[in-house]
């Protein structure tokens, strides 16, 4: 960098070693921390999933008592949702948003540092409950009272971990909104922003809207348990169902918080490898906004069996069915982007294509469950377990893999091993279906979710599902190997990396400089 001025080199100075990571205010460092944290939590939550599948491998109780099984299902969900998927997307946002909008860094770098460094403490507190008297929380990640109030010493730790995770998410979201609104390069109007930026802008608003609601709900649980209030106790004039209403008012937008950025990732990748512009850019933006709006008025479809009035059931059924419209628009647009393109099938594209297909299957089962009279049969069975794992694993997690392979060469300057990447894709794509597809059949045949042992009629499909699960779990170790290998070396990536890639991040060198755009680029 012979052109670098003294001023610039001053900014490149930062502490070395461990302290660099503790004090960093740099969006790339913080993005990396988020991604590493997410990957660690992915494996902790994954280990719990392996335990669950091992216990369910055959009928009968194989290992510990059912209470521990309940702790595993509860902790698996909490860790995967709040520890793995959400932080991973925030990590991507940190890395990519400044580079995509032509900014040097995030708008609020010190808050950025804080919002990350809260996470490990919340994570330790949550995982630490495993070693407490009375065991880890076992009332389900939805924390329905009165059951959750039977949690032992872990209870206050659960609540405070949730508070901390919420604070972290809200700060991260504020930072993203402020960055996108204020720091776009000259000429980058809102309707010129890459779709990943758009989906994250909308996601950030969802986070700011619903995380405080969630914090309120768990605080009411806390006062019910320790301070004698009766928000959720009928005996004291409260209502246990009210918790479910408040929880799902947060919970439904929450599931879109985990999928909208995935839509963004896929909308970046498919045009690149189809070598053709994204079809229907503006309708993609409007569809995302519509999905976000609808997410606020469909919450009670998670609770069709609580005994709502008929009119309530009808309203939530119709509103839920409506979500199929903007979601369908997105899928149609992706397929049209591929149509008459010039496609190649590198690992990111493979994961993106699998995303479109398998997420759509998850969408279909979602549409089926919107139909209230049939949902009475599907509700709380393995059918819903299959549904949300198709949307979350082959949806969100596959998009994260796609994103990692797509941007890793940009981040590190090294190409990943394409052969291994493809192997990782094919093993994942095959085994994830062996793992989750049979769960549709189990649910339809009548197997309830969250049970440690089951009637012998469910034995065969559970066994297949478990075998798929073990293989899928093992396959993910390959991903870690590929990432480490790429970080340490490999053939050098060009600045553009991919032949068809468009966007500001590809105009920077690979790896990009510590401060992404010291001078704002001109966007035409």
């Amino acid at each position, binding site marked *: 960098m012979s052109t670098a001025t003294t001023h610039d080199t001053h900014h490149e100075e930062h502490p070395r070693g461990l302290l660099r990571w503790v004090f960093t205010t740099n969006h790339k460092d913080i993005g990396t921390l988020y991604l590493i944290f997410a990957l660690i939590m992915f494996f902790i939550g994954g280990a719990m999933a392996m335990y669950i599948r091992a216990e369910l491998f055959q009928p009968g109780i194989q290992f510990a008592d059912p209470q521990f099984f309940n702790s595993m299902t509860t902790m698996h969900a909490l860790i995967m949702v709040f520890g793995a998927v959400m932080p991973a997307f925030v990590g991507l946002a940190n890395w990519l948003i400044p580079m995509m909008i032509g900014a040097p860094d995030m708008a609020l770098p010190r808050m950025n540092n804080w919002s990350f460094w809260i996470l490990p403490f919340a994570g330790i507190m949550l995982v630490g409950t495993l070693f407490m008297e009375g065991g880890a929380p076992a009332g389900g990640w939805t924390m329905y009272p009165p059951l959750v109030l039977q949690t032992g010493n872990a209870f206050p730790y659960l609540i405070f971990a949730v508070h901390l995770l919420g604070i972290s998410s809200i700060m991260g979201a504020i930072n993203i909104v402020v960055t996108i609104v204020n720091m776009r390069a000259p000429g980058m109007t809102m309707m010129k922003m890459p779709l990943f930026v758009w989906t994250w802008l909308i996601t950030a608003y969802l986070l700011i809207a619903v995380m405080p609601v969630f914090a309120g709900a768990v605080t009411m649980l806390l006062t019910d348990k320790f301070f004698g209030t009766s928000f959720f106790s009928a005996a004291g004039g409260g209502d246990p169902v009210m918790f479910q209403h408040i929880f799902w008012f947060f919970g439904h937008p929450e599931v879109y918080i985990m999928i909208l950025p995935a839509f963004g990732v896929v909308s970046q990748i498919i045009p690149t490898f189809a070598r053709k512009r994204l079809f*229907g850019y503006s309708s993609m933006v409007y569809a995302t906004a519509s999905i976000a709006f609808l997410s606020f008025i469909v919450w009670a479809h998670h609770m069709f069996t609580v*005994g709502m009035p008929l009119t309530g059931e009808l309203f939530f059924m119709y509103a839920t069915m409506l979500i199929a419209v903007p979601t*369908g628009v997105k899928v149609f647009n992706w397929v049209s982007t591929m149509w008459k393109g010039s496609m190649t099938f590198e690992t990111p594209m493979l994961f993106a294509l699998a995303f479109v297909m398998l997420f759509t299957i998850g969408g279909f089962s979602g549409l089926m469950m919107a139909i209230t009279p049939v949902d009475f049969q599907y509700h709380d069975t393995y059918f819903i377990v299959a549904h949300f794992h198709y949307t979350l694993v082959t949806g969100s997690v596959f998009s994260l893999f796609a994103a990692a392979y797509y941007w890793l060469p940009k981040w590190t300057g090294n190409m990943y091993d394409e052969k291994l990447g493809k192997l990782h894709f094919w093993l994942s794509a095959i085994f994830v279906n062996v793992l989750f597809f049979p769960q549709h059949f189990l649910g339809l045949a009548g197997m309830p979710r969250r049970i440690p042992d089951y009637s012998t009629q469910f034995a065969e499909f559970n066994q297949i599902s478990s*075998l798929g699960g073990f293989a899928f779990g093992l396959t993910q170790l390959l991903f870690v190997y590929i990432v480490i290998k790429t970080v340490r070396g490999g053939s050098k990536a060009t600045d553009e990396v991919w032949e068809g890639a468009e966007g500001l991040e590809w105009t920077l060198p690979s790896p990009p400089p510590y401060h992404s755009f010291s001078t704002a680029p001109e966007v035409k």
Partner: protein
Amino acid sequence: MLVSKVKRWLTALAGTALLANAGGAAAEWKLNLRQGVTSISQEAYDLHMLILWICVAIGVVVFGVMFISIIKHRKSKGAKPATFHESTSVEIIWTIVPFLILIGMAIPATKALIAMEDTSNSDLSIKVTGYQWKWGYDYLDEGVSFISTLTTPKEQILNQQDKGENYLLEVDNPVVVPINKKVRLLITANDVLHAWWVPDLGMKKDAIPGFVNEMWFNIEKEGTYRGQCAELCGKDHGFMPIVVVAKNEADYQQWVTDQKTAMDADAAAAGQDWSMAELMERGEKVYNTSCAACHQANGEGIPGAFPGLKGSAVAAGPMDAHVQMVMNGKAGTAMAAFGGQLNDIDLAAVVTYERNSWGNDTGDLVQPSEVKAAR
């Protein structure tokens, strides 16, 4: 221990391979939703099939286009990218067409839902109460009441015995209902949330403490129908099945008479003095169905979660406090109030049993009449 576990796993693995070879001849391999035995379950099934086929049709079209594109429009085949990237009319079409399809789904769904939620004009009402972890049934018109608990032996659950045909789906006292009658359930719970679900009846409803939910069914075929609790309710959520036996009118009436005779006999026995041996024998049975899930059969509980009764301050302390604890439960814990679940004899028997087992040797004997007085 470990060796036997590994062995079991290997057998199971071999079993999977065998099954795959035999084409699953021995297995059930149920793929689809049950059609069930009520008009509701049939409607749910028909709707399920309708939506499923619509989804399959949409899937074939969308994935078909996608795969044609993947096969034909690839760079390795020399495909040159087109430049089109938007079309307002196409966007409008694929917004409106799905909307119309949704309306087509919503009409039959609305009709079915309205019929399902109509609990009026029922012939018979049964109050269902969910407990951790069993079901209580009160026939409001007949005055018959009982508790229904799992009968699968612990040895089968712990893989020490072969599993029976109705493993985990068998109970001591099934719900008996007449066929071709509109049965209305009034569903509530005593402690935490539960959900009452028998797949063949086509409906499930949450049991919520402090609230009463309604659902109905009209079974057309005599038979035994099995289901489970469908809402996570704690440790033994997987072990509180539901069994419904549908009988013809005459058999049903006979069953009601038998139940009443048995209840009258119990009421008469409650007035008498019971011997230690009688109380201990009955107490052990009650303990194993109502208490052992938490406090364990050996009275040692589960450290950190459920206190032991062996040498405990309650079970070996003053008798009045012990009776009160069993009858009224302990607020803020999983200890339920058994006063409403168990009759005077059962309460007396179980307290007597707890005070004289596992090394507890108070020698105390509680008579049913004393329990009645303490209520």
